[in-house]
């Protein structure tokens, strides 16, 4: 079976990562970056940290105002247009996106315009390399910035050249999400990682997926250990949330890399379609549908997934023939635990989330068209099993 795997981004993560930014830009041949930030980063004054990191580097940088949230809005078009002129006039040579989706999308659109000309923003394909692009994530939605896709003025664009060249994760830039969001992002990354580890034929994808599962499982364990509300002591809660957030940003960055591969992530496609209707958040839906997704296709790696969901000793104690079942049980157990800790507020099945089979069937064409899932029978079986939580064989 043929597979391909491409992750065009270099990842730098950890304490004082930002201090390496000037060096990394220089290695890419850049010396005058323009920083595109989102509103949250702007309001938090995060560019001060960037200026500190650049002090003494001999580089100068330009800093934008906050990027509009909606990439299809008139304001976003104006924003990119004005930065395009500024970029050309002042001789910038690289882009740094600071924040989340809005900053990343604006930076990607601007990069197309400055590298290939504004007319390229309406083209279907991007073959040529663009100017160096660095992404500095601040939130656990970092996967939106590390993919190879973007959207501008109602026009979706996808190309490996749209991936950032460098992703730098520095704890000093984190804008800690609230605990509910942390929980859902942990579930999102966990589900995507589990699916790819179990079903991808590509060893490099499985290696990234294994890392994602371990990071997300660690964050989830911390979230569940202290109850969904977290420690009562506010300082302790803030410290713990910051640590979990930092772990999840790494998992989220890597999840974005895997979202950029050719094979669709079925749990993500279903999650986005179903969660988009607002009855439960994305990660919760993904973990609910995940067992059915994993059981829908033969997998030689499903048993090994149990290793990453448990511990080496727990994994090794289970006979190889039972490890696939143990992996699926471990995933189901997450939804059971959340149901219990939330006193029934977090659903275990799509039925408990208020969905019926008819309502799910009405989404099928959307899911197929949007995510390239071409096997309608399997899709129906997955949705039916996720509706009531029954295993595939029953």
């Amino acid at each position, binding site marked *: 079976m*043929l597979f391909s795997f491409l992750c065009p981004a270099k990842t*730098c*993560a950890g304490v004082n990562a930002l201090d390496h930014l000037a060096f990394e830009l220089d*290695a890419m041949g850049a010396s005058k970056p323009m920083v595109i930030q989102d509103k949250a980063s702007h309001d938090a004054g995060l560019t001060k940290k960037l200026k500190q990191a650049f002090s003494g580097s001999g580089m100068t940088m330009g800093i934008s105002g906050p990027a509009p949230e909606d990439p299809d809005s008139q304001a976003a078009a104006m924003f990119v247009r004005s930065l395009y002129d500024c970029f050309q006039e002042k001789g910038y040579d690289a882009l740094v996106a600071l924040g989340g989706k809005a900053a990343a999308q604006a930076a990607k659109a601007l990069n197309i315009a400055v590298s290939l000309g504004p007319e390229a923003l309406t083209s279907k394909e991007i073959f040529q390399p663009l100017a160096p692009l660095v992404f500095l994530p601040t939130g656990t939605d970092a996967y939106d910035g590390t993919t190879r896709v973007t959207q501008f003025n109602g026009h979706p664009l996808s190309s490996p050249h749209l991936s950032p060249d460098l992703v730098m994760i520095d704890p000093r830039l984190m804008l800690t999400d609230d605990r509910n969001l942390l929980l859902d992002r942990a579930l999102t990354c966990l589900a995507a990682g589990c699916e790819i580890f179990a079903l991808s034929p590509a*060893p*490099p994808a499985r290696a990234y997926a294994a890392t994602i599962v371990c990071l997300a499982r660690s964050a989830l364990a911390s979230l569940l250990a202290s109850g969904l509300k977290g420690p009562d002591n506010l300082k302790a809660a803030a410290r713990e949330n910051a640590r979990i957030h930092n772990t999840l940003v790494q998992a989220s960055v*890597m999840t974005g890399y895997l979202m950029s591969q050719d094979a669709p992530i079925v749990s993500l496609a279903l999650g986005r379609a179903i969660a988009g209707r607002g009855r439960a958040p994305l990660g919760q839906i993904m973990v609910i549908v995940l067992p059915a997704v994993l059981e829908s296709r033969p997998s030689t790696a499903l048993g090994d997934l149990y290793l990453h969901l448990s511990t*080496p000793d727990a994994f090794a104690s289970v006979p190889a023939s039972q490890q696939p079942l143990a992996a699926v049980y471990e995933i189901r157990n997450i939804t059971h635990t959340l149901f219990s800790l939330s006193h029934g507020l977090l659903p275990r099945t799509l039925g408990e989330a208020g969905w019926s089979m008819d309502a799910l069937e009405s989404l099928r064409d959307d899911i197929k068209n949007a995510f390239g899932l071409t096997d309608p029978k399997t899709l129906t079986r997955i949705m039916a099993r996720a509706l009531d939580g029954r295993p595939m064989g029953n």
Partner: protein
Amino acid sequence: MHMPAYYEFCCKVNIVAGPDALSQIPSLLAAKGVFRPMILTDKGVAGAGLTDIVTQAIGDTLTIPAVEDDIPPDSDVRVVNRLAGVYREKGCNAIIAVGGGSVLDTAKGVNILVSENADDLMAFTGAGALKRPLRPLIAVPTTAGTGSEVTLVAVIADHDNSRKMLFSSDFLLPDAAIIDPRMTATLPPHITSATAMDAMAHAVEAYTMLAKNPLSDAHAVEAITLIRDHLLPVIADPGNTRGRLALACAATMAGIAFSNAMVAMVHALGHSVGSICHVPHGTCMAILLPYGLEYNLHKVEDRIAHLLLPLAGPDVFARTPEKDRASAAIEWIRAFNRKLNQATDKKHPTCLKDIIGQDGSPRVLRSDLPRIARTALGDGAVFYNPEDLDYQDLLMVAEAAWEGIPLDLSKIKKG
């Protein structure tokens, strides 16, 4: 999971693998807008018919203005300059490198010259001298061991000035690595075992040494598992295409792991044995790997213990008490070497003194060991070793590996 305070991870190479992966080359180059690749290879690869397989897989969708097959094993700046001239003269706009480390390093050197429109390779030595993307380069590895298709360095000799030039840059990473089992199908069993154990050493050292991180660990574990599962079956059945593909993928995964986490004393000693005694690199790695782990056991026992799971599998891991897992992992590698020795009709040696040259004489003499230890001390890989090393330490390890007896752990200076 080992989480360092700070880590970096990078592999920008598009990895394309499968039984007919070579057929993807035209579309990969078309996506870059280029259609006139030069093929670089060596006489051995061409003589084995591998270049023909590549050109047939490409078909007539591309124009191949030049196939240059005279790259020597220890390539040189003169070769690079000559090939850059051919590239320009024939109007090429991309490079396909088919072969092992020397071919790929040469291809990287040629790519520097033609992309930078330069004629002096020296201007680009060291780290970070390249500041922009080079011309498209596609790597087709033929050995399933070195991992050079995913490394960002090139070493090119300058024999006239008796020096080796090192180049390091993300821009030296090939655009794509094509992993096709046809490229390793004709490797004889003992070379299959040596190259796979080269990859095993990359993965094990990357997992156990100082610069590891979660992503390099995950790549290393995938590589180890693939080698564990497929090496002996491929030696028993060289036509096992699925196994060949798995081993080639393992080599690439191990290459990614070590190029991000670095290697240590096993490679320092291995480079030295290879250069002084002209022993194939993979053979050195297979023999020296358990000794390197033994030497560092007191520093990284937990990491070595973790490796028992991918090496020996879950049943052995569960049956082995926690305190014994590290030594069991080392013993597993020794036992694996012994199995490979049997499976290859004793052509896979298990100690340095058993390495025999084509003339039937031993390649590594006991009298070579002091020089081997001295040379290893100057190897950059020593820097990444968990335990400090001096000449006496390296000599002690080399002597044990020569005899084929475990290290006397009481003699290791524990810093």
